[in-house]
């Protein structure tokens, strides 16, 4: 690092005397590199961000977003309506519960798995298991839904085993009481291996002499993991936690949408699935769905700030 920094400083010295305009002109090629991405960002993320003002308007297709009139209550009518919207409230609570359930049940699994994988001595085996565990991440939730239906359907292998053992058939797909647990476990099955990569990469970067010294002092493997490995990955754990917290209002549309059904709406309908159904299946008012979406984004953003603050206090390192 220091060597390259020194060299780039040297290179910089040549440009420092230049005026701002000359520096911009000198780097014109660099701006051109950013241009296509800038265009893409402006059109497909920043224009929609501005379009979110629709949340404060009575949308009419004829007038478009900008010329549609503002709603009553200083534009907050749609938000006010949400307070008395039973299915929105249901979806809101489901979203919060499922998100925190994910933090509680799903989040620790890759960390644990990474620590266990790290205990495997032969690198060849370690890589083999990693390859196997990571694979489901690359398969879409649509495919997973097919796989899951196949396993758990009436004539599937799970019920086959249950019947063979003298038990009753179950249907986890339409059982509201166990559906959230079903979401957590399928998500762990799919994503836990993928989640280990970042932790294993961090572990690889730990200075081996730390372990060497501890082993000479007679540390057990558990002690090595507890007092060297864990503190070394703690800051990465913190960052991952912040990212997880900042998407608390998302709760995994992709998974829920492909696994849920009317029988479990009560437990599984989240804000995103509600927005989708309302807008594209039932064809309700665009503006009120926009209001829900904006509400979601604002909470997520607030959670990012809160999460970053808390994690920074606890581990000394946040994402900014």
């Amino acid at each position, binding site marked *: 690092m220091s060597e390259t920094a020194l060299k*780039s400083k040297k290179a910089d010295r040549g440009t420092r005397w230049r005026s701002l305009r000359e*520096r*911009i002109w000198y*780097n014109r*090629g*660099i*701006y051109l*590199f*950013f241009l*296509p*991405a800038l265009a*893409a960002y402006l059109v*497909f*993320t920043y*224009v*929609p*961000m501005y*379009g*979110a003002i*629709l949340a404060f308007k009575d949308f009419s297709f004829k007038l478009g977003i900008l010329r549609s009139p503002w709603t009553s209550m200083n534009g907050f009518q749609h938000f006010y309506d949400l307070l008395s919207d039973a299915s929105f409230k249901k979806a809101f609570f489901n979203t919060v519960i499922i998100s925190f359930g994910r933090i509680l049940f799903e989040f620790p699994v890759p960390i644990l798995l990474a620590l266990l994988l790290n*205990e*495997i*001595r032969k690198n060849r085996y370690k*890589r083999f*298991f990693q390859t196997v*565990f*990571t*694979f*489901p991440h*690359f*398969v*879409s939730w*649509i*495919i997973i839904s*097919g*796989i899951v239906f196949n396993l758990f359907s009436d*004539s599937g*292998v799970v019920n*086959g085993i249950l019947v063979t053992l003298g038990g009753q058939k179950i249907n986890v797909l339409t059982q509201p009481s166990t559906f959230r647990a079903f979401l957590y476990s399928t998500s762990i*099955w799919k994503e836990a291996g993928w989640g280990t*990569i*970042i932790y294993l*990469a961090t572990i*690889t970067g730990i200075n*081996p002499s730390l*372990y*060497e010294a501890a*082993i*000479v*002092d*007679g540390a057990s*493997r558990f002690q*090595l993991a507890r007092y060297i*490995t864990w503190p070394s990955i703690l800051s990465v754990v913190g960052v991952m936690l912040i990212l997880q917290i900042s998407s608390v209002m998302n709760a995994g549309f*992709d998974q829920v949408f492909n696994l849920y059904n009317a029988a479990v709406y009560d437990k599984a309908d989240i804000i995103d699935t509600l927005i*989708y159904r309302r807008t594209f299946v039932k064809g309700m008012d665009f503006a009120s*769905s926009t209001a829900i979406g*904006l509400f979601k984004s604002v909470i*997520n*953003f607030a959670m990012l700030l809160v999460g970053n603050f808390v994690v920074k206090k606890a581990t000394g390192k946040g994402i900014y």
Partner: protein
Amino acid sequence: MGAPGRAAKAARNTARVRGKGFGSGPASHPTTVGTVLNGALMVLLALVTIFPFYYVVLIALSDYATVHKQILYIFPTKINFESFRAVFEERTFLNSFLNSVFVTVVGTAYSLLISSMAAYALSKDRVPGHRILFIIAIIPMFFSGGLIPYYLTVSAVGLSNSIWVMVIPAAITTFYLLLMKNSFDDVPKSLEESAKIDGATDFTVFFRIVLPTSMPVIATMALFYAVDKWNDYYLAMLFINDLNKYPLQMTLREILNNFTRFQGTGIGAVIQNQQTPIVYTRSLQMAVIVVATVPILCVYPFLQKHFTKGIMLGAVKE
């Protein structure tokens, strides 16, 4: 454990350490019950990971009669390729397969090009306005206008019901862009500067020096983008209503959930016909799943070894 025991253990460990040389730390401990249990657990988890895929292939290759005769069907007794034949004879399916190939190839190239270029621009922190560009790229990671404004914007651009809707709007994944940026940061500045002194343009520097030296990251990001494109159904679901423009995932979703849309097609006829089944409905569905998964399975093992490296270069930096 008493002090002598501990000392002996330490001595033994030191001997081990010396004997093996130092790889990763914990690997130098002797085999214990824990090691064996851990190994057993890993094998078990690997089986749990693999079995569902095995079961998909098993059902795809079975026929209705065989599966229904047995309460528990885990080992193949009769292999039957009928469902695969039915799938490949189906035009809707083949068509959507080709659509997905198109979206994956063109989309990955496009995404990789514009996000690696942007990443390169962001790795130049001497450029005036660098911070502003960086913030422009970062904000969408944490804030979005929501689904409806996005829908209205993409429709207004005129991409509704066009296959390009799966290529153009979601071209940049900011997270991948940042991984690339971090990796470009590590390309020795002296290399670039000396090339520039020799008269190379930024363009040449990027394509001739920066990209080739960052191959592990580029390969990893190409894989990530490709898999994302191959698996995408969301944009198609929102914007495409013509069955002929569906990507594979969307056709698969319809085949799994919504047979009625396929009634007029060949697969629909086969599915309808399940009272006198030559092909079992579920075998058909599983055959489609196999066909949709195999392309990923083909590229995955070759690129897997790059992941850790690619992510490590990109993400884990102090």
